[in-house]
């Protein structure tokens, strides 16, 4: 097989899966949507965690902020919030398809912009911390923002808020969202693939390998770190906006800012697949999601233990993850060619003769 047909087959195959999987398994459309969402989680976590060496446990903040921002925009556009509160029991957030789509689109865009701005502001401060200090600070941030959201009446405080109802005229919500999430995976994957091929990619790798050295060489380290986080935040903001609408009900701790589920899953998935690799987060997320859903269905009561076992086996025996292992073992699969020669040793020999 020539080297040109391989990617075509790979991408073509994935495209076919993206199109036909939700059609073939209509009962699993929500699960498929969540699976693609997990891929976006892992891909965006890997920007900092894998490529830049900054382990963030607070990326979930952008997911939740994007979710609330999108839903708030949708509400502001078409509903009177006062009326909503008075007759909330009977109130039905029905919209025509064009209004629904416009509200969703505008909401996601505004959500993404807010997340980018937030990541810039937070990052300019927090990204000055390194190592454990950065990790623990982001963990605190994730938990704190969740609690904070529970106190804001405008977004329904602790009792949450509803997203507009998916218009029945638009057909199956499951199909709509599984395609939408798939498009998001494709968009984030290719954006990151391109990004890692630019100077930016090398700069964040350099920060991962030795930040002091990068500083000593004059790299704008804080600038690169902040931009990396804003890119993460951009895709997570959109993801949040979509997920809030798919779920229909937004609640601060379990849906919008679930640090101990989605927040930890994004780390575990990237590690499982192989952090710092292009396909690792994709593979890790899909595997993790399938294992998680299988254990939830067939081994209910043991599901957390099963996930714990995966994480332990992963970090004890398999630290580089699946793709990391393969890259080590079969570097030529990944286009890494090494010309072995002993030029230095030859010179040394000459010098001693």
């Amino acid at each position, binding site marked *: 097989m020539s080297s040109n047909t391989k990617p075509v087959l790979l991408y073509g195959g994935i495209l076919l899966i993206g199109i036909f999987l939700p059609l073939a398994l209509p009962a699993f459309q929500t699960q498929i949507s969540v699976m693609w969402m997990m891929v976006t989680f892992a891909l965006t976590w890997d920007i900092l965690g894998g490529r830049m060496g900054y382990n963030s446990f607070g990326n979930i903040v952008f997911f939740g902020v994007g979710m609330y921002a999108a839903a708030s925009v949708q509400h502001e556009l078409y509903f009177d919030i006062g009326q909503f509160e008075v007759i909330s029991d009977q109130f039905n957030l029905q919209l025509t398809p064009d209004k629904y789509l416009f509200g969703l689109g505008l909401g996601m865009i505004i959500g993404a912009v807010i997340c980018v701005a937030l990541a810039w502001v937070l990052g300019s401060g927090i990204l000055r911390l390194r190592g454990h200090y950065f990790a623990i600070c982001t963990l605190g941030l994730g938990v704190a923002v969740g609690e904070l959201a529970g106190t804001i009446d405008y977004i329904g405080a602790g009792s949450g808020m509803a997203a507009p109802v998916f218009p029945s005229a638009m057909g199956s919500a499951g199909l709509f969202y599984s395609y939408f999430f798939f498009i998001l995976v494709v968009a984030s994957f290719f954006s990151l693939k391109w990004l890692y091929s630019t*100077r930016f990619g090398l*700069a964040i790798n350099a920060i991962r390998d030795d930040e002091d*050295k990068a500083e*000593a060489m*004059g790299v*704008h380290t804080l600038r690169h770190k902040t931009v990396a986080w804003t890119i993460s935040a951009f895709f997570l903001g959109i993801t949040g906006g979509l997920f809030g609408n798919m779920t229909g009900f937004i609640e601060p701790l379990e849906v919008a800012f679930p640090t101990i589920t989605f927040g930890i899953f994004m780390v575990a998935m990237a590690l499982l697949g192989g952090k710092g690799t292009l396909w690792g987060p994709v593979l890790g997320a899909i595997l993790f999601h399938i294992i998680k859903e299988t254990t939830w269905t067939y081994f209910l009561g043991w599901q957390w233990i099963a996930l714990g076992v995966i994480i332990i086996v992963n970090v004890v025996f398999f630290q580089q993850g699946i793709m990391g292992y393969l890259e080590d073992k079969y570097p030529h699969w990944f286009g890494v060619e090494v010309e*072995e020669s002993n030029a*230095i040793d030859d010179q040394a020999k000459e*010098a001693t003769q």
Partner: protein
Amino acid sequence: MTNIIEVEGVSKSYGGVVANHKVSMEVPVGRITGLIGPNGSGKTTLFNSVVGYQPIDEGSIKFKGQEISKMNVQQIARLGLLRTFQQTRIYGNMNGVQNMLISVSHRNAAFLDMFKPYPAEMKDKAEHLLEFVGLYQKRKLSAGDLSFGQQKLLEFAMALMNDPEVLLLDEPTAGINPTLINGLLDRLHRANTEFGITLFVIEHNMRVVMNLADNIYCLAHGELLAHGTPDEIQNDQRVIDAYLGAH
């Protein structure tokens, strides 16, 4: 002869330990200046102060007449004043060419430049410089897999890639196979003459520093002990005493 670096009355203490006390020295442009002294005499401390790695307690440090003692590491590096580390630092998980490309100067980097690819001439330059230090055949290996001596050479090549005006080298020959030292000496000379880079070198190997430098400063106990040509320094009784422990 103009001086590209002017250090004047610089003091630096760590708690009660005085690492540098009112040190003054000048690095003339286009030359090779050596800095010697027994272990713990404050050489690396002075380097750290010059490149902005730590704030100084008092004194002034000027680069091309501009006061830099209040600037941070990255700003100073972007001015064209670069250092290598005593404990060699390279990007271990990246290959040789990548190590070189990321070392391109960020002096005039605009914000959006980070999203550009590397042009072919930069890759050529990277490979050319790897060839210059004798690492061309190893360019696709992870830098972390190179031997210590090779990593030193890579770090030197990375510094050249940055097109600095002044290069501060902290013990460039430490840990290098003695048979390779002559090759490295030759390359240091060529970096000075062919690329026009002013060198300021900390070195313990007396044979190396006497061959390399035009003028040498000697520190002892954080203070400037002597300054002169290699011949003068070699015959200075105070320097000999300092190295033999008479101080």
